C-alpha cells in the first residue's frame, strides 16, 4: 500500500528520489481512495518553479477538489501528460503510471524532512 523505499508528506504526497537531484511526485493510495474517482488533473507547466509546502497541482474528483503540495522546492522538469486523458491512472496505479510531476530539487536535503513509510502509516492510523 505504501512502498517502503518512498518518502511521504502529511498531505499524502509521495516522493521517489531519482538520479540527478530529481524527485518524482504523486499522491498516495490513501489519498486516491479518499478522493474517489479522479476526473481531472490540473498539471503544472514544465519549467515552473515550485516551493516546498505550496500548491503546485490540483486533483479533481467527482466530489471534491484538492490541492497537491510540492514536497520539495525546485523546478518542474517533467509532467505526466497521460493524466490529461486518463486521470483515473491516479486511482489505478498511484505509485506507477499515476505519477504527477518530476521536480529537479534545489536542495536534496529537503528530502530528510519528509516521512518514512512507517511514519506515514502511523500518520494515517495504519501503523
Amino acid at each position, binding site marked *: 500500500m505504501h512502498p517502503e523505499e518512498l518518502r511521504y508528506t502529511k498531505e499524502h504526497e509521495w516522493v521517489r528520489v531519482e538520479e540527478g537531484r530529481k524527485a518524482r511526485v504523486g499522491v498516495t493510495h490513501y489519498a486516491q481512495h479518499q478522493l474517489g474517482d479522479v476526473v*481531472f488533473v490540473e498539471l503544472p507547466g514544465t519549467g515552473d518553479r515550485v516551493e516546498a509546502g505550496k500548491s503546485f497541482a*490540483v486533483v479533481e474528483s467527482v466530489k471534491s477538489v484538492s490541492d497537491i503540495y510540492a514536497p520539495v522546492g525546485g523546478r518542474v522538469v517533467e509532467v505526466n501528460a497521460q493524466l490529461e486523458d486518463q486521470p483515473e491512472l491516479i486511482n489505478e496505479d498511484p505509485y506507477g503510471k499515476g505519477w504527477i510531476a518530476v521536480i529537479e530539487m534545489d536542495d536534496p536535503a529537503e528530502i530528510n524532512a519528509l516521512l518514512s513509510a512507517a511514519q506515514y502509516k502511523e500518520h494515517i492510523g495504519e501503523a
Partner: protein
Amino acid sequence: MLRTIGVASVEELFCDIPEELRFKGRLDLPPGLSEPELLAHLRELAGKNRHLDQLVCFAGGGAYDHVIPSAVRTVISRSEFYTSYTPYQAEITQGVLQSIFEFQTLICQLTGLDVANASMYDGASACAEGLIMACAHTGKARVLVAQSIHPEYRLVAETYLRHQGIAVDIVPCAQGVVDLAALAERLGTDVAGLLVQHPNFFGHLEPVREAAQAVHAAGGLFVVAVDPISLGILEPPGAYGADIAAGEGQALGNPLSFGGPYLGFLSAKEELVRKMPGRIVGETVDAQGRRGYVLTLQAREQHIRRHRATSNICTNQALNALAASAYLALLGKEGFREAAYLSFQKAHYLEARLRELSGKPGGLSRRWDLPFFKEFVIQSAVPAGELQRRLIARGFLAGPSFSQVGLEPDNALLVCATEARSRAEIDGFVEAVKASLTE
C-alpha cells in the same frame, strides 16, 4: 395550531428574545383589505405604469420587443416546470434536466461554440463572468473592454472584477465602433481577454475578425457579447474567432417585463469548460444503458470548490431559459432567420423614413452613418429626454437616451424596429417624431 405544537400563545414562541429587545406597540400598517378591495387597489397602482399594450415600442438598448408565440407561455406555465425546484436530484427531475440540456445545446448551435451553461442572471453578468473565465484560463490580471459595449455591462464587469485584483482598461471607440489602433496600443502579453459587443450598443457592426486576431496574437482570449436574434443573419461568434460568447437572452421568447427577470447565456470552447461558472447539465447513460441527464462538473462550483471557484453563482434562470428554448423550437431555423431578417429590414425602412426628415425643422439626423442591425442612434435639436416624453404622449416608446445610460450628448437616443413592428406603426412613429420635433 398552537395546541398542536404544545404552545399556549404566539408570544411564547418568542421567549428566547429578551424582553427589552421586543418591539412594543403596533406596526404602522393600514387595516386589512378584502379581496375585491385589494384587487382594486393593485389595479390602481399598476395603472400608473404604461406598458406595451398602450405604447408601441421603438426602444432598444439590450432588451427588445420581439414577437413571442402564445405557445411559449403555455409550455412554461405547466406546473411541472413552473413550480419545479433546482434539479439536484437527477432521479426525479429528468424532464427539467433535459429541457436545460436542450437550452445549452441551442445556445451552442447559435453561437458556434462547444459548451454552454444552464444560464446566468442576465447579459451584463454573463459578460463579466466571461472576462473572469479569460483571467482564470490565462492566469493574467488585465482585461480590455470596448467602450462601445452597453454602458451598464461595463459597470457590472467593473463591479465584478474590482475586488478580484483584475484591471479593466477601456478601449475607446472612434465614430461609433471600437478603435483598432487604440486596441493595438492597449494590448500586451499581460492581457487575459478583450470584450466586444457585436452588434454594439449603438447597433453597429464591429471589426470582430481584426479584434480577434489582435487579442489572440497578444495571448489573450476573445469574449463577444451578442444579441441572440442577430445570429439569425450574422455569423456566429465561434466562426470569427470568439473563445467565449455571452449575452442577453431576453429577446428569445421572454417579454420585456419592466426590466426582468432576464436571461444571461454563456458559451465557450471546450477547453474552457472547467473555468465556466454556473450549472451545467450533462447527458449520460444510467446503469441500464438508458440516456439520462444530470448536473455535472460540479467540482467547478462554489459549493464544492469554495474559495477556488471562479464564481459564486449557484443558480440559473431556468424558466426564462425554457421560454427561450420553446421560442426557438416553435420558430425553427427558418422562422428564426426570418425574425432576424425582418427586424433588419424594418429597422432599415425606419431609418430610410426618418432620413426624409433630415434637413427639415428639428435637425434630425443619424449620429453615425454606419451599417447597423436593428437599432441606430439619432440626434436632434430637442434634448432626448424631452423628445421621449413627447413621443410617449403620442403613444410611442423610443430610447434609451444616452443620458439614461450615462453617456453624452444629451440629444442622442437609440431607436429600434423589430419584426414585431408593422409598416403602419413605423409610419405612425415617423409622423410622431416629425410632430414632436416641431412641437
